[in-house]
């Protein structure tokens, strides 16, 4: 008789345990692997687009090499990629996107006319980005700067 009273209790406990175990496993798999992987993939795609857009802005900003060539452009950058701040910097004729996550980021070679001597400076995603082109010693200097206008 005692057995008959215990049976439903054991059964419910078994079911509940199974469900809890299952939910735990699925949550661990999703939040431990699948969701971060998707966030990184999406973040990398956004980073590629941001970097391409920034490179295009730099390329389009270059004026003809006249005696007084000057240009100033504001550039819109997303504040965060994959939830973190990042920087875009010019290095050796390329633009580099540096992100705390090693799987996010990239490097793109700029296509600029010969009149451009050097591209330098960097942008931080949380600060207003400004692109300044000036002329010194007969060549154009493109600077990635921080500022409003």
């Amino acid at each position: 008789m005692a057995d008959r009273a215990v049976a439903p209790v054991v059964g419910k406990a078994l079911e509940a345990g199974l469900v809890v175990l299952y939910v735990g496993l699925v949550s661990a798999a999703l939040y431990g692997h699948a969701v971060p992987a998707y966030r990184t993939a999406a973040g990398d795609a956004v980073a590629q687009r941001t970097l391409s857009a920034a490179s295009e802005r730099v390329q389009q900003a270059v004026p003809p090499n006249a005696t007084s060539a000057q240009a100033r452009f504001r550039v819109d950058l997303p504040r965060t990629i994959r939830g973190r701040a990042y920087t875009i910097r010019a290095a050796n004729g390329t633009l580099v996107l540096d992100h705390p996550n090693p799987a996010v980021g990239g490097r793109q070679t700029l296509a600029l006319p010969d009149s451009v001597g050097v591209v330098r400076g960097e942008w931080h995603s949380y600060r207003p980005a400004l692109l300044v082109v000036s002329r010194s010693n007969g060549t154009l200097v493109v600077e990635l700067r921080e500022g409003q206008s």
Partner: protein
Amino acid sequence: MRRAQANLPALVVALLVVSTAIGMSLALADGAFAGATRSPGDRRAAVALSERLVSADSPVTVRKNVLNRTIVARLNASSLRRGFPVVAGHDFSVRLGNRTLVSVGDSTGGVTMRRIVLVAQRQPVELTPRFTGPNATVTLPRRSRRADLTIHPPAGTTVRTVRANGRVVRYDPAGLDGTYRVRLARLETTTLALNASASLPAGSVTVTYYPERTTKATLVVTVDG
């Protein structure tokens, strides 16, 4: 004991259904990611290469958007990579009309940019004018950046001055005899005037000029990976 656990199989089936639903939604998310891929890097490289190729300071153009046929025909992969480092590390191809100028790697997919350009070619045209009287003028039928004048006046006749639209381009008080290259204005029709001491017979002056012939073509730039 056994009779009481009859709904355990039902629970297992329910969990299996939930697992299948999760798997399917992950597969859908993968598909959405793949469908949203636009390869912005390739697009930017294709746009940049095509822009730089047709820009005024490009090594292959005569002026903005006008390609020099001779130089374009000599393009190859290494000269393109050197002149346009933006495509370094990419598979790319450059076509002009139906002709493939350069193809590096496999660029069957990728992003393609098309631009309508003019292709210019200069060919020499020879003109032997006939003159009446000592002040000989000849108008070139097409505009040309330069002209080669061959002057062989008959004995006893001297040609001292050659003018292009009134501007003196050659002068020799002892008399011109030989072949002379003169630079001309590209933007206006040129009339050459020779100042001779006597009437020049036909064949004593030959003008070779280089008119530009342009044809339209589509420049197709593909960049892949």
